């Protein structure tokens, strides 16, 4: 009979060998298929010119610039929409979470029904709904009537006032000139639909986390705050929420990561974020493996980075808290 230590080493060696054997099989398949098709695995295609355009981005990109720049533009779009979605979802989630513990039964039950409906429908269905609403539910530019004189909701985008007027006023208002609306700043319907869908979906999950965190704070805290003369809202804001934050942070962080990964669903609504740029690059150059590897590495990097920060924060909280 082998010793205990020998058995342990044998088990680990067997597991690692099995995994490497499977990996080797895949790699041999890739090598054989690539050479049969005459392709090579190389990242040099990134310097080639892109034949597609990236509609909107913080990094301006037009068709003909390098594919690397296209990927950077896609990445900036992902980060933009994820950051705004995280912000909006947190605000909405805290509001609905507080509504879910309201003493008024009507508000509490309506918030519960709302959260249950949002959480039980797939995010993709909601994104398609908001996208359809943005592109077909609004009139076109000629028929849109401005709200408050400065906001146009059309099927080609939302036109909002922008700061920095042209010398006459603080805001530059969009207005109808000819067949288009000029001035102000415009938000494309894809971006608006994606953002609203993510905010509402993420907000309902965050509302559950907020509610759980608030309920985890002992009731004595609320009662003491009310005894000191604070009204319910101030008691919540000054006493309960700061203590609830500690319980809320880990699940909140995983929800933020989920929002980041869910932004990749934008491939169906036409917003040019990283996943969509990668698919366009694949269909143009045929280097599917490299493009997918780039996408996976980017998402992994961001996810592991945020998770590492969360672990650091958690460890500090455990050190400071009285257990």
């Amino acid at each position, binding site marked *: 009979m082998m010793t205990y230590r020998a058995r342990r080493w044998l088990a*680990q060696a067997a597991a690692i060998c099995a*995994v490497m054997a499977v990996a080797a099989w895949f790699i041999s398949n890739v090598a054989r298929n690539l050479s049969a098709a005459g392709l090579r695995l190389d990242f040099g295609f990134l310097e080639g010119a892109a034949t597609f355009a990236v509609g909107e981005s913080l990094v301006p990109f037009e068709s003909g610039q390098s594919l690397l720049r296209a990927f950077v533009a896609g990445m900036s779009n992902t980060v933009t929409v994820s950051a705004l979605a995280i912000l909006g979802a947190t605000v909405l989630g805290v509001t609905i979470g507080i509504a879910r513990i*309201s003493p008024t039964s009507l508000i509490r039950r309506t918030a519960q029904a709302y959260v249950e409906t949002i959480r039980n429908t*797939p995010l993709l269905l909601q994104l398609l709904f908001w996208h359809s609403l943005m592109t077909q539910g609004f009139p076109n530019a000629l028929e849109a009537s401005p709200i408050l004189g400065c906001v146009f909701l059309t099927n080609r985008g939302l036109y909002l006032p922008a700061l920095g007027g042209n010398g006459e006023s603080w805001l530059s208002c969009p207005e109808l000139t000819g067949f288009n609306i000029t001035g102000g700043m415009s938000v494309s319907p894809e971006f608006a639909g994606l953002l609203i869908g993510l905010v509402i979906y993420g907000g309902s999950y965050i509302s559950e986390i907020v509610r759980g965190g608030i309920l985890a704070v002992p009731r004595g805290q609320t009662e003491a705050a*009310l005894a000191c003369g604070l009204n319910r809202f101030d008691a919540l804001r000054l006493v309960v929420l700061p203590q609830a934050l500690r319980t809320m942070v880990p699940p909140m962080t995983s929800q933020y990561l989920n929002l980041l*990964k869910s932004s990749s669903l934008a491939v169906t609504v036409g917003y040019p974020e990283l996943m969509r740029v990668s698919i366009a690059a694949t269909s143009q150059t045929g280097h*599917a493996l490299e493009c997918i590897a780039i996408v996976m590495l980017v998402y992994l990097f961001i*996810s592991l980075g945020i998770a590492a920060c969360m672990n650091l924060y958690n460890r500090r909280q455990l050190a400071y808290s009285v257990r």
Partner: protein
Amino acid sequence: MMLQPPSRLAWRRPSFIANSLAVVLLAWLAWKTLDWAIMSAAPPWATADACRNIQKSQGACWPFLAAKFRLVLFGRYPYEEQWRAALFVALAGAMIVWTLWQALRVRRTGRGARSIAMAWIVGLPCWALLLVGGVAGIPAVSLDNVDGLPLTLLLASMAAFGAFWLSLPLALARRSELPGIAGLATLYIEFVRGVPLVAFLFMAFALTPILLPSGWVPPAPVRALCVLVFFLAAYMAEIVRGAMQNISTGQYEAASTIGLGYWKTMRLVVLPQALRQALPSLANSFISAIKDTAVVFTVGMFDMLGAAESAISDPSWGGRFLEIYVFVGSFYVLMCGGVSLYSRHLERVGNKQSGATR
């Protein structure tokens, strides 16, 4: 409450104002919804002409849904054989409900797990026969034509089933004290949890010509199922691992005192307790499995969402979309809401059994 103003001044409390505003807003929303859905809408038995005068935003056009609901539910499944798909949906739904109910009994008494396994092992080939046919005189339907609600149910239940069995060894491996095995499991779980599902689906559908030997082309539902199984297993493994961490070390020590080895400890002592605790969270991950099957629409598979999109793109109905989305959404709410109620019931029962006082 001692420091609130007397009740005749209650209307000046800020909470009263906020609550009244909220009530007014909700009443207005409810009125608008009722108006759109019923009062200004064309009933489902009307003809298509009745919808012509109703604006998209003012009233629903239920004849649109009546004309399209078979397409949305069954996709490209042959028209005459759709009774088989409907029968499959009924059977699969009944079996899932029975499994969840039986899991309650397993949780209470610890027995009956074998009957669940037997039912699924017998049931799965029967379903395959019903849907795909090809033997015993049942006309064959290509697996690529299984769309809509049967595809959603098939993917969700088989993915959850397979992922569950894969997650148990994964969780054990992640908690193993052998660094090699624990490292491999951690690498896999962290990698899968860091990348969105769309990337994996795209990899499975665009890279199979490169990754697999030439000539191996598994049908699309099989590829989607493999991706879903490996994806969900990582998340379920984290849930099981968390439940295993909650079990006190006294259990492990007592088991080794009696002389149980590693595998016997896990099978007889640790996993039964861990799975009992993890059951509400595992039910939640079943809900995620149902919703994740919708993502296969991004790689061109015609699940319910894909069929809904093709129904909406019919230009003769004037670009209406809300009726179809409400229809599809209500199926998802029914399925996921049911499992969610079950999961909440489990948590309540679990709290009572473990002596929590709230």
